């Protein structure tokens, strides 16, 4: 009833090829963005910013990056945490050593570019190995980068503890002090990055990635160059992941050690991509929301319901319920939450009729 496109005629190619051809979709997305930019800053508490919205947004950017690599190009990568670390530490070193450039946009872009360079380097094995074997090669990148940031003292400015800290952040003169400021900056960056990612995957580059993913030998035969395609996938993916890592260090943690970007972080983002849906940008957001929010909700749910239990039991239950939910969702819809969303939209087109 509400989701029909009757009466919506396109009169030029640009209108026909737009990202959201249906008016209701456009309105919905614009409404979401308006709420995110205008309503949330007016209503949210600091806890909501720092523990829910900021981690969700930053990790969804990292999930977009990994989805480009794993979902759109089919190259399994377990090095996400390491690339986030490259982004964070490269940004930190630029921020530290060139104090005149205390502009977060520049700093994050530099972090992203360094991560892209490192991503290309560790993506070279993908030209020879596929699937799980590539996963192991990227695992090597994760461990190597872990080791590098723990041992190469220059990168952490010779601090005795190995921990680095940042402060006095600003963007073109706007000082980033409060959680609301950080939230708005991160939201802006994530929106821009999502638009860029959407256009990339809809264009020639994205189609070449998907061709390599679906049947790489056939793709090579019809003229897609595997070297260029796979390395661009690694580069773009690592760029997004590097920017996400820089934001994680600067805006989420403020002070971090290499353990913040360890193998568990890589797994966490891979799970976001798998549960959200491979090959779908919306899936990155849904997966990030699931993985970030569900543990926190499960931890606080007994408190909201007034059930008293020991913190140990609470932690154990949280683990068990989280695992059970992951298994449940993957059984119900193996293609992820994004597929559930598109199935819902399909049904909504017919509603209230059954067929």
């Amino acid at each position, binding site marked *: 009833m509400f989701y029909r496109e009757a009466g919506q005629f396109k009169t030029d190619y640009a209108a026909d090829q737009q990202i959201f051809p249906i008016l209701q979709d456009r309105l919905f997305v614009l409404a979401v963005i308006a709420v995110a930019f205008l309503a949330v800053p007016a209503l949210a508490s600091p*806890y909501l910013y720092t*523990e829910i919205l900021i981690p969700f947004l930053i990790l969804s950017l990292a999930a977009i990056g990994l989805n480009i690599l794993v979902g759109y190009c089919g190259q399994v990568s377990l090095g996400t945490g390491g690339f986030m670390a490259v982004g964070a530490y490269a940004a930190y070193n630029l921020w530290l050593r060139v104090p005149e450039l205390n502009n977060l946009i520049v700093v994050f872009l530099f972090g992203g570019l360094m991560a892209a360079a490192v991503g290309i380097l560790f993506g070279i094995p993908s030209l020879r190995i596929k699937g799980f074997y590539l996963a192991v090669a990227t695992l090597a990148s994760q461990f190597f980068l872990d080791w590098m940031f723990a041992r190469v003292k220059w990168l952490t400015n010779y601090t005795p*503890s190995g921990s680095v800290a940042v*402060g006095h952040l600003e963007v073109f003169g706007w000082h980033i002090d409060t959680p609301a400021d950080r939230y708005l900056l991160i939201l802006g960056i994530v929106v821009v990055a999502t638009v860029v990612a959407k256009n990339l995957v809809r264009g020639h580059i994205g189609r070449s990635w998907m061709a390599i993913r679906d049947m790489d030998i056939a793709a090579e035969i019809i003229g897609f160059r595997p070297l260029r395609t796979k390395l661009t996938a690694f580069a773009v993916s690592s760029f997004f992941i590097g920017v996400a890592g820089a934001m994680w260090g600067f805006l989420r943690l*403020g002070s971090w050690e290499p353990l913040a970007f360890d193998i568990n972080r890589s797994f966490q983002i891979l799970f976001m991509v798998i549960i959200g849906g491979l090959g779908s940008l919306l899936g990155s957001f849904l997966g990030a929301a699931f993985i970030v929010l569900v543990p926190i909700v499960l931890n606080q749910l007994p408190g909201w319901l007034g059930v008293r239990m020991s913190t*140990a039991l609470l932690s154990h239950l949280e683990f068990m319920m989280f695992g059970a939910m992951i298994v449940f969702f993957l059984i119900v819809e193996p293609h992820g939450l994004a597929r559930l969303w598109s199935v819902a939209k399909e049904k909504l087109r017919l509603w209230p009729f059954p067929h």
Partner: protein
Amino acid sequence: MRLRTAALLGAAIAAAGLTVAATAQAQNEQFIPGLIYRTGAYAPNGIPFANGVADYYALVNERDGGINGVKIVYEECDTGYATDRGVECYERLKNKGPTGAAYVNPLSTGITFALTEKAPVDKIPVISMGYGRSESRDGSVFQWNFPLLGTYWSAADIIMQHIGLKEGGFDKLKGKKIVLVYHDSPYGKEPIALLEQRAKMHGFTFTPMPVTHPGVEQKATWLQIRQNRPDYVLLWGWGIMNSTSIKEAAAVGFPREKLFGVWWSGAEPDVRPAEGGAKGYHAAMLQHGSGQFGVHADLKKYLYDKGKGAAKWDETGEVLYNRGLVNAMLGVEAIRKAQTKFGNKPLTGEQVRWGIENLDLSAARLKELGFEGMLQPLKVTCSDHEGTRAGRIQQWDGAKWVVVSDWYQSDDKVIKPMVDAAAKKYAEEKKLPVRDCSKEG
């Protein structure tokens, strides 16, 4: 249809009941958050500590009716020793209670580093008793950090003094080999600066050997130690890393008498898994050791005889349980001190900070509280957020801990210049204002 309406009605009533319950909140209460861990790789050491803290707050409520009539509301949040979960717990709990959190004890150097950034903004003091940044002893830069009773540089210094004494003087250390097996995190890396300084001063070779979290993979490290044959090995571990190290030392045949752990590596959960293999192992003491003291009689009378204790009675003399008691006691006494200035009511974090900075526990007061024999008198000032820097060495004899040394004071001639330099560097990097301690009270 009837079942559905009944279910909806029931849910509505329950929701109404919950909202009513939430608003009925007492106002004369001091909220104290507990960032502890009862799960994860560090749980064996986290659980007795958390029990000690919970028991002491319950004791103050039961025995004294609160702090001058203000009852303590204590809420635990399991951090699992993970920095991001620790920050999430802190953010969740920092504004609870009528005046917000009084202070926070992160029980993790990693979480302390993260909260050091947030504490000045939220105005909640961080008490990192026996851990945290060593340079945070300088209160003129680190206004909100309180590494009470000792930092890692003090710990390393105390152990080195004991080793020097055993060898017959620091000059006898020349040419010896000392290895540090440390947890590869800010916690483990802290003592390296002091040990390198001492190595330069006395001419021994110092080799740090990192062990990755959680610390179960140590075979390579201890094979290296067996090859190198160092004279002493210092252990800076936590959780299961401690027991693994002692078992590995027994496996390669390294004499446990030459193995010295920091005060976070010297508790019963660390030595019991190795069974006979831990006999002879030394550890530093964060002032107190194991055993029952005056406060335990009160615990028995007011909590355990009534079945309100958090742990089992046999566990209440253990090292980490006692440490939980000490940590909670210091916080409670700081609130009490702050109440002398601000009144007997729930206090904000800023007011409690004043209380901690002016904390002065004499021997008589410690005896009153039941902590005689556990602690030496301490006095916190603006420039000295450590309060006291004494310690002893204890040894595991297979069944219990035995104190084998006298009191050592960490050497400020070595440590103070390092603290000043590190604090100055931190203040410059973060462009922080430095307080003038001579001007303040």
